């Protein structure tokens, strides 16, 4: 389906590797992991956990009174969006374009606020829970706070689709602009679920990585024979999506073009992925873009580093791409920034945009001995130059079997 062309004209990150996109990309390109061992929780109940956490300090970018009305995920979203608006040149005296929309992905919303309220109720045996608890725990907090912080008066929508949340937010933003409903969208996602109660729940699921002999940074190992699981991260990423007409009229810098979006559902299992569902998302996205697998030079894959998940995505790529699968470079940057769940799609879409812009492909870190079941070109160790790179995909596949693939092209 053809419609208006859609470009990314601004990028904003608050990530485990920092906030500056160029510096983040450089560290990723060199294979530097931001994963570390962190002591979480209370002295009695805490644990040492591998995390890609952020030493986040909003400073004067969010006033103290405003912070009291924002969960951590919303604060991350506001700062990432501020960075994106400044990058795009759309910020005027602290305000964004009021006619814009906000499409944000988020999984758990104010997870730490919910934990605190339950702690008050259960541990302190008190019903005196903070009066702001309800509005702070909602998954829609990031979108609402971005709208309020920057005076954005178009729709402020939240997509809560587990690990695919922000890829779908960007995909739906792309469609809204392409199909003429809106001209500019602040699209992305935020996640901050590294509070101890949430981490314990992930531990209960049995999917988290164990510390590798080579240290915390070597523990997330997608496609490697010694992979043991995923590492949770936190952060936010916002992309400014604009119609071609609007971007050209104001002389905006065009970072990358979004040309396709595909989504599908497995209709299979809650946490067990399916080749069929992922294959259909990839095929749908390429068809939407009017491109073929031969056009694609790079895929930023979903692969989280779990023993079961990674080979499923490899098989889905092989089926969707056919013989072209042998020629495409793929990498999982989660090996370095961890799994940001509701923010992962936006962060990885942003990294993919930078890879196209720079014609440099970031690596899969810690991939030393490949699993024979993961026998594609997984760009192990360090990044590589890709002088002919024109088109790339960003995959996000969620618990519940929701799959999303974005197609990006050099601007």
């Amino acid at each position: 389906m053809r419609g208006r062309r859609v470009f990314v004209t601004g990028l904003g990150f608050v990530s485990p590797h920092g906030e500056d996109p160029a510096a983040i990309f450089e560290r990723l390109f060199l294979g530097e992991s931001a994963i570390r061992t962190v002591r979480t929780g209370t002295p009695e109940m805490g644990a040492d956990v591998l995390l890609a956490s952020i030493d986040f300090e909003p400073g004067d970018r969010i006033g103290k009174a405003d912070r009291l009305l924002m969960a951590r995920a919303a604060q991350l979203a506001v700062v990432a969006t501020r960075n994106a608006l400044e990058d795009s040149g759309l910020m005027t005296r602290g305000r964004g374009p009021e006619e814009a929309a906000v499409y944000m992905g988020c999984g758990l919303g104010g997870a730490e606020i919910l934990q605190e309220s339950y702690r008050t109720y259960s541990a302190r045996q008190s019903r005196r829970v903070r009066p702001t608890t309800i509005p702070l725990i909602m998954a829609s907090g990031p979108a609402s706070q971005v709208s309020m912080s920057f005076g954005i008066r178009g729709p402020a929508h939240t997509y809560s689709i587990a690990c695919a949340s922000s890829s779908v937010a960007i995909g739906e933003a792309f469609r809204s602009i392409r199909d003429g409903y809106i001209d500019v969208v602040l699209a992305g996602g935020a996640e901050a679920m590294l509070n101890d109660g949430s981490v314990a729940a992930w531990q209960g699921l049995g999917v988290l990585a164990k510390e590798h002999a080579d240290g915390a940074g070597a523990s997330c190992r997608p496609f490697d024979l010694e992979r043991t699981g995923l590492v949770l991260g936190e952060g936010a990423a916002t992309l400014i999506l604009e119609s071609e007409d609007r971007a050209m009229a104001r002389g905006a810098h065009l970072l990358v073009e979004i040309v396709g979006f595909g989504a599908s559902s497995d209709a299979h299992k809650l946490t067990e992925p399916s080749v069929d569902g992922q294959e259909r998302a990839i095929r749908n996205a390429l068809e939407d873009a009017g491109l073929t697998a031969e056009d694609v030079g790079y895929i930023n894959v979903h692969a989280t580093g779990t023993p079961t998940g990674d080979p499923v995505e490899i098989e889905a790529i092989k089926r969707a791409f056919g013989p072209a699968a042998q020629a495409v470079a793929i990498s999982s940057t989660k090996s370095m920034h961890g799994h940001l769940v509701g923010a992962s799609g936006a962060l990885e879409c942003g990294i993919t945009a930078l890879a196209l812009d720079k014609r440099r492909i970031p690596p899969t870190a810690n991939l030393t001995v490949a699993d024979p079941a993961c026998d594609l070109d997984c760009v192990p160790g360090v990044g590589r130059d890709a002088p002919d790179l024109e088109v790339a995909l960003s995959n996000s596949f969620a618990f519940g079997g929701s799959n999303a693939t974005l197609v990006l092209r050099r601007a």
Partner: protein
Amino acid sequence: MKSYDFLVKLLVDEFGVDAVELVPEASPAGLGLDSLSTMEMVRELEDEFGIKFSTEQVNFSTLGEAAALADELIEAKGL
């Protein structure tokens, strides 16, 4: 008076209010606090001194009034 001092410290440290704006005649709205933030402020005051504002008492209009109410409740508790 101790509750007024507590309010001043709370509003400066946690709510980011400029200390020079903090006079007994100041209203929460005038300091930039919306109704939800005012409820948070009252809750902190209640927790600090182990008191409870009634629904009517929450409708104070100035910081001085809130502090005077709190002082009354603290005194009543001590009896």
